[in-house]
């Protein structure tokens, strides 16, 4: 006998984004551990006296009660569990959090178990709020998310031959999904030489525990090159430009510009 869908379900969720529906309602995209990514309707959210508006803002972990609907579920109650308030106080942290949300949205499918993805996003947002370091949190998040969604970049062995590739001799292909040796260049015309420092750090981030990885010190210049490689890679896997990645870069440029002027 087919299992009956309960009329009301309660779940914890992270709000990924929301969009307007009519005059006062919104469609909220939630990431839930067991139902994965789902779109739900929140009625009257744009009214000043809405009791749920603050609990369904993007970048909020919230407990929701959902009434089963024919096309989309309806939010009947919402109570925020974690608002990541400190992330709202700094432009670079906020833009990074927006990037984590957009990347999660792009790389997940609707109505599929997302327990691991939920854990990765929650863990990363909490680490960002603890000020663990934007580079470490973001790069670990990207590598972990790419791994569980089936896009894990191959950093150690040649995609073509399967042989280990030395960091100094490696070439990088976004389309292929990792490193290749010079012997395989003919089959990957778009491949470019990858900065050996960048590759070593990525390898360490992928293979070490979070605590071990957090001991790696990288200067801002190397951080910028790491970010460039990973942003290109996730853009290719997501098959579209990620506006939030551009905003992360722009936020850092604006923030560093101001800091540099105040230091001078």
């Amino acid at each position, binding site marked *: 006998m087919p299992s009956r869908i309960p009329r009301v379900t309660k779940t914890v969720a992270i709000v*990924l*984004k929301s*969009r307007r529906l*009519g*005059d006062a309602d919104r469609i909220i995209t939630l990431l839930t551990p067991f139902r994965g990514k789902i779109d739900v309707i929140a009625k009257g959210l744009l009214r*000043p*006296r809405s*009791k*749920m*508006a*603050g*609990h369904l*803002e*993007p*970048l*909020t972990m919230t407990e929701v009660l959902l009434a089963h609907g024919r096309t989309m579920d309806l939010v009947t109650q919402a109570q*925020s569990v974690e*608002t990541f*308030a400190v992330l*709202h106080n*700094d*432009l670079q942290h*906020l*833009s990074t959090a*927006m*990037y984590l*949300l*957009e990347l999660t*949205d792009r790389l997940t499918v609707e109505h599929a178990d997302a327990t691991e993805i939920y854990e990765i996003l929650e863990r990363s947002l909490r680490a960002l709020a603890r000020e663990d370091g934007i580079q470490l949190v973001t790069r670990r998040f990207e590598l972990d998310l790419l791994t569980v969604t089936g896009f894990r970049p191959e950093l150690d062995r040649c995609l073509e031959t399967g042989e280990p590739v030395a960091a100094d001799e490696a070439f990088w292909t976004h389309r292929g999904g990792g490193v290749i040796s010079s012997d395989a260049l003919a089959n990957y015309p778009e491949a470019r030489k990858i900065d050996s420092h960048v590759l070593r750090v990525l390898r360490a981030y992928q293979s070490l525990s979070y605590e071990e990885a957090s001991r790696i010190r990288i200067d801002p210049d190397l951080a910028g090159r790491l970010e460039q490689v990973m942003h290109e890679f996730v853009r290719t896997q997501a098959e579209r430009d*990620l*506006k*939030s990645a*551009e*905003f992360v870069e*722009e*936020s850092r440029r*604006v*923030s560093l*510009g*101001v800091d540099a*002027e105040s230091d001078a």
Partner: protein
Amino acid sequence: MANTPINRLIEAFHRLPGIGPKSAQRFAYYVLRAPEEEARDLADALIEVKRSVVLCQRCQNLTDKNPCWICLDESRNRTIICVVEEPLDVQAIERSGGFNGLYHVLHGVISPSDGVGPEELKISELLIRIRDIDKEIIEIIVATNPNLEGEATSMYLAKLLQPLDLSVTRLARGLPAGADLEYADDVTLGRALEYRQKV
């Protein structure tokens, strides 16, 4: 659906935001039953608004005069600019009667999930205006909505404007009139407590 005049009218109403097929049909049949003069007024208003309304070269608000009447009004405080997301926000603040300065309309808010970044907004126009046109400006009030995108936009503007040595402020956040404390979220309640006032 046959390409008849009535179906074309229904289709035109249906394209409006928030209008479903049934509402579109009701509007179309209302226009059909209304006197010809009323239909002509509607058509004229639609054509006139498209022909005459432009963006004010200074504040980017919608206007039929360029610069708009607010930018030309010498009685307004010309040292403060209130930056808003949409032209409707100008109307809302004007209705409140609590602000007598100038405005700048961004025409959106930084929202990466909708594909909107800083370059899609009227931010460069604001910078040019402060540097070259309204040189007496001393304060910028960022009146974006108190949500994730509004906060990102206000923080971005604050960083961008910091080298210009202006006072950049944003609207206070707290509980709306008629709200219940019980249902307030942590961020709103926290801000309301942080910015509490003496009674």
